[in-house]
């Protein structure tokens, strides 16, 4: 029944294309049917297979179904749409015209193909860019009823940080007393060391309150989520794990639920596995542990380190919730003596929290892509105009036969819409493939786009770009607009013929057309100028950024991270023994200058924030007059980073747990409190994460003032900072050092030290994982990656558009010269010097360049202001950029005109006299 059994199978390439592109729901049946028919028909040719394949792609490719739904929806609103279309167009949309347009377009394959390539490329680029923008900014978050999810922050009225994390007691009070939230969950760092099965590994994790998944509207795929009992202090340790960890370390064994694994040297029961598609808000995680509020946490009102996600009750707005939460904070202020004063809340939609940081960069890139698309339209219009002369006869005959201008325009518009439609379809298909590539690139590069406010935002893995109905609607709208944009000018010109003119073969009309082409070239050049200026400003910003003094010397420093588990190292003394052992062994290596541990290296994390109490300096009503960042160090760390000493001394070996507690503060900190007289900070007593009444032993005496360090980014002002010595005890475990910095004396290759450093840590504690082994200079370099990425992207676009624009310029110049061929030859025959000819024609070139430059520079000033967020110490009207870009641009333009101009001087005067 199926014909003779043959071994013939569909070529691998065709199968792979179909497998990748067909919609998932029908792929199996379609491929099976095709395979069967292909096998049963030995006579079927490759051409047959290609036709079938193309047919399947056009009807059943991924996204086509969306397109069809979209078309159906549009069809439902046909009447309104038709009435919205200008008369001129709707008249032309007849079946006859479309058939005619197909014939006309197909009869000029070379022109049509170049139009489709130009426009298709532009549409594909814009669609891909939009699909990224859509995935990050527009598509709903992957949680239950995401519109009601918010992120809640605290902030001190009048302090610089607009959003601060929650302190545990404040969180608990808000959770109990609020009337506007269905639930509020807290999220903190919960990274742990996984030991006992194979190599020790540092797992990224979060500690979460029991209601975390409930608030997000998510359930585990295996086992159960947390329950209130998991939050009890002293209860049996439990954990949820990610699907990724489950696959990587436990071979997807379903019996993992209920099993015990060693996390931070504590037997912990796995109670559930999260789905592979679960995207934790605010960063990657492989393990979730229940948050447990012990007495110390419950008493710590001023330590702010909890992120939150909350679900609003139905019909409650963010503003109502904010008022409700503020009410609780002011109640606390009255009731509780330890409560901080002037504390308020900020309620931000979770969508805004997670993706708000990406908005400026994505908007910038989208703007750049729009310019490229505009450029493609201008180029296409120019190509059409160049061919218009060929069609003048056709138009004239049609006009003579009674078609009016409006009808001719309609005819031509149908043609360009048809071309745009094919280009749009191919562009969409191209973006289906591009999406796969983008999804592979995003995890590594999306973080780069987040920029400065990157805390608690989406990470690259969290964003999956798909072509949903928004993207398709965008591609469709872009296609239609493109078709109108590139077709309208040529249509107006070609239809504006009188039979009389054409039949007399006058050159008047071609003069008009030349003017239009010149204007189009000027527009193209203007777009190139805008992008060139944008690239120039970014270049300046990157250069300025690299010149910034970070406050430390990044060269010749190797770093690594070792996070000690609180179980293996329960006391500060035990931790100190580990730090001392590692530092001592490292120092004994040859070629080592100095080495030390710190809580967080610069540019890896802002640091722990909190209010600072200063003895004998109470500001009325404010217990903590300033907020600062807190870092604990071993005594040689500041020297290893070459943080300059401004006054006093840094930590010494002689400062121990037995001697009085000491602190070093940053110059910014000292100046914030004592202004120009900042050395008065020396000898003052300060305290962080405590209260003068309940924890007087936390007072530290300031012994030194060091230079301010840019802890978060090169372009962000250094925070106020307090350094404390690890050996003198820490306020809580999270503040303990974890990052090691090793400065080399400069004679050996820093990276050659990596295995030795690993071996040293393994020697001190074989169960201790080492992560993030890298150079400090790489960390700093990574901090400028975002602007360098923009520079690359915008720079590429700029060069691309400049090349297209210059090419258009040269082709119009050739056109002008051949149009004036007779006149120029005659002038030469009458004795004009070639230099005069060049001046004559060159003037036309100069006009186009000047007009393009003027419009471009005006546009660039506007565009530069829009991208101000991306500039660093560079004014939007940066004089150097604004001076250099026009010069470089003009040189490019005149060089490109040289070839056609040279041809103008080589005209044969004799030819003119012969009357050619």
């Amino acid at each position: 029944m199926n014909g003779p059994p043959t071994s013939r199978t569909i070529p691998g390439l065709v199968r792979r294309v179909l497998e990748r592109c067909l919609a998932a729901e029908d792929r199996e049946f379609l491929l099976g049917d095709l395979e069967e028919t292909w096998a049963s028909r030995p006579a079927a040719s490759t051409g047959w297979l290609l036709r079938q394949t193309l047919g399947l792609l056009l009807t059943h490719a991924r996204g086509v179904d969306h397109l069809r739904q979209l078309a159906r929806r549009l069809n439902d609103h046909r009447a309104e749409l038709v009435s919205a279309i200008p008369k001129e167009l709707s008249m032309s949309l007849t079946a006859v015209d479309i058939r005619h347009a197909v014939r006309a377009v197909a009869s000029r394959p070379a022109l049509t193909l170049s139009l489709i390539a130009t426009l298709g490329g532009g549409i594909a680029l814009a669609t891909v860019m939009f699909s990224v923008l859509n995935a990050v900014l527009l598509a709903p978050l992957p949680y239950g009823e995401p519109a009601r999810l918010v992120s809640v922050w605290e902030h001190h009225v009048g302090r610089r940080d607009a959003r601060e994390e929650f302190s545990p007691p404040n969180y608990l009070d808000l959770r109990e007393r609020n009337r506007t939230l269905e639930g509020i969950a807290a999220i903190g760092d919960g990274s742990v060391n996984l030991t006992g099965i194979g190599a020790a590994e540092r797992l990224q994790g979060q500690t979460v309150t029991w209601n975390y998944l409930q608030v997000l509207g998510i359930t585990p795929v295996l086992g159960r989520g947390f329950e209130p009992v998991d939050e009890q202090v002293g209860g049996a340790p439990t954990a949820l794990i990610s699907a990724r960890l489950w696959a990587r370390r436990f071979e997807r064994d379903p019996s993992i639920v209920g099993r015990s694994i060693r996390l931070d040297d504590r037997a912990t029961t796995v109670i559930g596995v999260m789905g592979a598609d679960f995207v934790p808000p605010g960063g990657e995680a492989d393990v979730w542990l229940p948050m447990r509020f012990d007495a110390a946490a419950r008493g710590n009102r001023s330590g702010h380190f909890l992120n939150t996600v909350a679900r609003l009750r139905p019909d409650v707005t963010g503003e109502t919730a904010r008022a409700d939460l503020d009410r609780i904070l002011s109640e606390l202020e009255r009731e509780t003596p330890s409560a901080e004063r002037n504390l308020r809340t900020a309620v931000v939609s979770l969508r805004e929290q997670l993706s708000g940081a990406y908005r400026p960069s994505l908007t910038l890139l989208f703007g750049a892509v729009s310019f490229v698309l505009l450029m493609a339209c201008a180029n296409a219009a120019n190509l059409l105009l160049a061919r218009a002369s060929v069609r003048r006869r056709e138009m004239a005959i049609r006009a003579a036969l009674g078609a009016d201008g409006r009808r001719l325009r309609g005819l031509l518009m149908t043609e360009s819409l048809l071309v745009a439609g094919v280009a749009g379809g191919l562009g969409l298909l191209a973006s289906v493939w591009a999406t796969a590539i983008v999804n592979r690139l995003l995890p590594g590069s999306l973080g780069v786009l987040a920029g400065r406010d990157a805390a608690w935002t989406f990470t690259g893995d969290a964003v999956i770009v798909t072509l949903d109905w928004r993207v398709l609607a965008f591609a469709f709208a872009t296609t239609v607009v493109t078709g109108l944009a590139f077709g309208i000018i040529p249509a107006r010109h070609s239809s504006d013929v009188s039979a009389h003119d054409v039949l007399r073969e006058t050159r008047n009309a071609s003069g008009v057309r030349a003017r239009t082409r010149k204007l189009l070239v000027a527009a193209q050049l203007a777009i190139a100028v805008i992008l060139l200026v944008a690239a120039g400003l970014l270049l300046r910003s990157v250069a300025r950024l690299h010149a910034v003094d970070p406050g430390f010397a990044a060269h010749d420093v190797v770093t690594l991270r070792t996070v000690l588990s609180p179980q293996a190292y329960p006391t500060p003394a035990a931790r100190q023994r580990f730090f001392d052992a590692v530092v001592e062994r490292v120092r004994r290596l040859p070629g080592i200058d100095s080495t030390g541990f710190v809580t967080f290296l610069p540019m890896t994390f802002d640091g722990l924030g909190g209010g600072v109490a200063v003895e004998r300096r109470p500001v009325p009503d404010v217990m903590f007059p300033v907020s600062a960042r807190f870092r604990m160090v071993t005594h040689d760390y500041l020297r290893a980073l070459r943080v300059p000493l401004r006054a006093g001394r840094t930590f010494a070996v002689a400062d121990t747990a037995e001697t009085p507690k000491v602190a070093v503060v940053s110059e910014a900190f000292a100046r914030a409190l004592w202004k120009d007289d900042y050395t008065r900070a020396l000898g003052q007593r300060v305290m962080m994460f405590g209260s003068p009444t309940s924890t007087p032993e936390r007072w530290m005496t300031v012994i030194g003032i060091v230079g301010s360090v840019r802890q978060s980014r090169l372009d962000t002002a250094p925070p106020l900072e307090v350094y404390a010595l690890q050996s003198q005890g820490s306020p809580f475990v999270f503040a303990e050092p974890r990052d090691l910095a090793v400065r080399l004396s400069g004679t050996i290759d820093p990276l050659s030290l990596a295995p030795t450093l690993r071996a040293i840590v393994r020697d001190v504690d074989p169960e201790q994982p080492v992560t993030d082994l890298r150079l400090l200079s790489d960390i700093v370099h990574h901090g400028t990656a975002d602007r360098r990425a923009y520079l690359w992207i915008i720079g590429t676009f700029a060069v691309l558009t400049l090349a297209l624009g210059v090419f258009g310029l040269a082709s119009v110049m050739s056109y002008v010269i051949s149009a004036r061929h007779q006149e120029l030859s005659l002038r030469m025959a009458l004795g004009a010097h070639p230099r005069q000819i060049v001046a004559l024609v060159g003037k036309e070139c100069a006009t186009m360049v000047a007009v393009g430059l003027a419009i471009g520079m005006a546009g660039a000033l506007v565009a530069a202001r829009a991208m101000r967020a991306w500039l660093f110490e560079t004014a939007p009207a940066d004089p150097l950029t604004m001076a250099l870009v026009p010069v470089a641009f003009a040189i490019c333009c005149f060089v490109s005109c040289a070839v056609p101009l040279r041809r103008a001087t080589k005209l044969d005067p004799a030819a003119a006299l012969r009357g050619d």
Partner: protein
Amino acid sequence: MTRPAVGPLGEFEQITLLALLRLEPEAYGASIQREIEARTGRAVLLGAVYTTLDRLERKNLISSWVGDPTPERGGRRKKFYRLEPAGAEAVAAALRVVRQLATGVERRLTSRIGESR
């Protein structure tokens, strides 16, 4: 659930439904494509067949189910189609129209074709 109003069938819809009816219960994409090609002598795209089947299914004229994996298709399954009562009605109505209009004109048609030869 109210059945959506079904307009008259298009030509290819009619052909597809008839082919499906001839093949039942062995009606699936490839067999329908083969049947149409064999009976009408015109080349048909598999994509077009499926698009039509999808549309007919949406109009509740036919329904589908998925069969078992078959070795000759590389282990892929087939999606089978079956005519629903509404589909049978629609085909019958279309045929009735053709038959009623065609009665008595066939001889005239053949003579007309003969003329042109």
